[in-house]
């Protein structure tokens, strides 16, 4: 093992090899948890996608069916948080940020559909969970600054939010297909409000920027739906949330 010269103290590379091997072991441990989360995210999205074909009144059945999968994801995120908090957060966060974003998006959609406040009656749509509320659901800290532990970052939340907008854009069209002319209006306002928020951010050239650049097209997509409805006098009279321009 030792070099045939006094050039290199063999301990140097032995020490480095140990460090790199330790990191590899950490990665392997995290990888298993992250893969589990990925699977659970797929399950959440599979169940929640039924919202696109479920009439408003039947939404509770979708929410109920998703509960188990969301609970699984919450447990996995806790496991991830436990394992990851032993390491410097930003050393490995690239490994899971995609999967955490997907989990956030699933929970945001679930909450928007009324899952968070569901009390056995009608599901009430339109709620946006804040970053802090998401943290409470997932039982992990958010936007940490003073200590180096696992947490949900602002960027992850914002990226999940852009995915939520995409999902809702799709829902706006599909609601119309189901004969529901009210939710497109709700979605229209919601998407506009989110977009207005994104507009005040000074984004750099990164993934968040690319994601948020797509928002304006989603805003337009939903507006088109609302336009189609109003053109045909299908906009419900009581929901005068939309001001015609």
């Amino acid at each position, binding site marked *: *093992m030792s*070099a*045939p*010269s*006094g*050039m*290199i*103290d*063999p*301990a*140097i*590379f032995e*020490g*480095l*090899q140990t*460090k*790199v*091997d330790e*990191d*590899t072991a950490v*990665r392997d441990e995290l990888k298993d948890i992250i893969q589990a989360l990925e699977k659970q995210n797929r399950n959440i999205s599979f169940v929640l996608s039924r919202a696109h074909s479920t009439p408003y009144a039947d939404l509770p059945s979708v929410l109920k069916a998703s509960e188990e999968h969301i609970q699984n994801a919450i447990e996995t995120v806790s496991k991830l948080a436990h394992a990851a908090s032993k390491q*410097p*957060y*930003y*050393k490995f966060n690239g490994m899971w940020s995609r999967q955490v974003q997907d989990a956030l998006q699933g929970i945001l959609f679930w909450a928007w559909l009324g899952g968070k406040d569901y009390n056995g009656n009608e599901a009430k749509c339109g709620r*946006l969970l*804040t*970053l802090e509320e998401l943290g409470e659901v997932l039982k992990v800290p958010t*936007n*940490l*600054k*003073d*200590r*180096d532990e696992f947490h949900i970052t*602002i*960027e992850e939340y*914002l990226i999940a939010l852009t995915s939520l907008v995409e999902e809702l854009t799709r829902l706006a069209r599909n609601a119309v297909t189901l004969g529901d002319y009210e939710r497109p209006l709700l979605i229209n306002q919601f998407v*506009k*409000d*989110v977009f*207005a*928020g*994104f*507009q*005040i*951010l*000074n*984004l*750099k050239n990164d993934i968040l920027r690319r994601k948020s650049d797509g928002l304006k097209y989603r805003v337009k997509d939903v507006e088109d739906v609302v336009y189609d409805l109003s053109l045909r006098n299908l906009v419900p009279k009581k929901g005068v949330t939309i001001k015609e321009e």
Partner: protein
Amino acid sequence: MKEEKSDKPEQAASPFMAMFEGFRAELDEHHDRRERIIKASRDITAASKKIIFTLQRVRALGQSVPPFVVKGNAQYWEIIEKQYQHIAADVQGLNAFRYPQITGGNQEFMEALSFHHYLETQTLISYDDAKNRVASMSGSAGAVLLTPEDYILGIFDMVGELMRFSITAMATNGKLPAGKPRKEAKATHEDPEGEDADKMDVDEETSASTPAEKPRNVLSDLRALRLQLEIFEAGGGKFGADVRKKADVMRECVDKVEKALYQLTVRGTERPKGWVPDVREERRPEVESY
């Protein structure tokens, strides 16, 4: 900042505005930190390259670098120190691994530091020494972290500098730089260098008890480095990919020195003794640096 809102009344109506304003403030801070680090990394890289450039004018091995190098490089060491101090506060605690943008500067600095260290001591600087060096340059705000990855990748690049150093020395002095013999081992000056280097591996393995007997030359050191770097397992990920890329270049560099030494050995005997090719050209930049 608040004026922006009144421009667009539509925005003021959004119930999420307060939340986004909070995000904006934090993202701005984050981007500011990142930009400071990118700039520092670039400046450290540029200054390190200049240090290396000056170091390439050194001809002797195993002794303090000549005054013109110390003098010429002082300003660059200062720049690097200033840059590390400038960003030290940005990479503390939670943010220690947040800005990988510093790695470019760290690697280049590692290359300069290890090359300088090699020229003076003819040994490889240890990771801990290098890490502590960066930490001591970072000032009171806390250490800037030099990762094992930065160290390894910097050492890979240092092999290239040793190659340049060797080739230049062979071209100007007609021989491979070697350390100072502790005993008066004049033999190295008379023996063809090639034979020397070839024997080195075998010699020292068998008679490791007397390593000081014969001074090592740069090629034997390069081979030792190559050996260590090749058996190093970098694992997967970006670091693994970087290592594999740099390993190819590293092997080429060692090959180049071996080839040059071969040529020197084969053709060197045909030259008149003491014939030195074009030293003047090499001196010019030295004068400039004063």
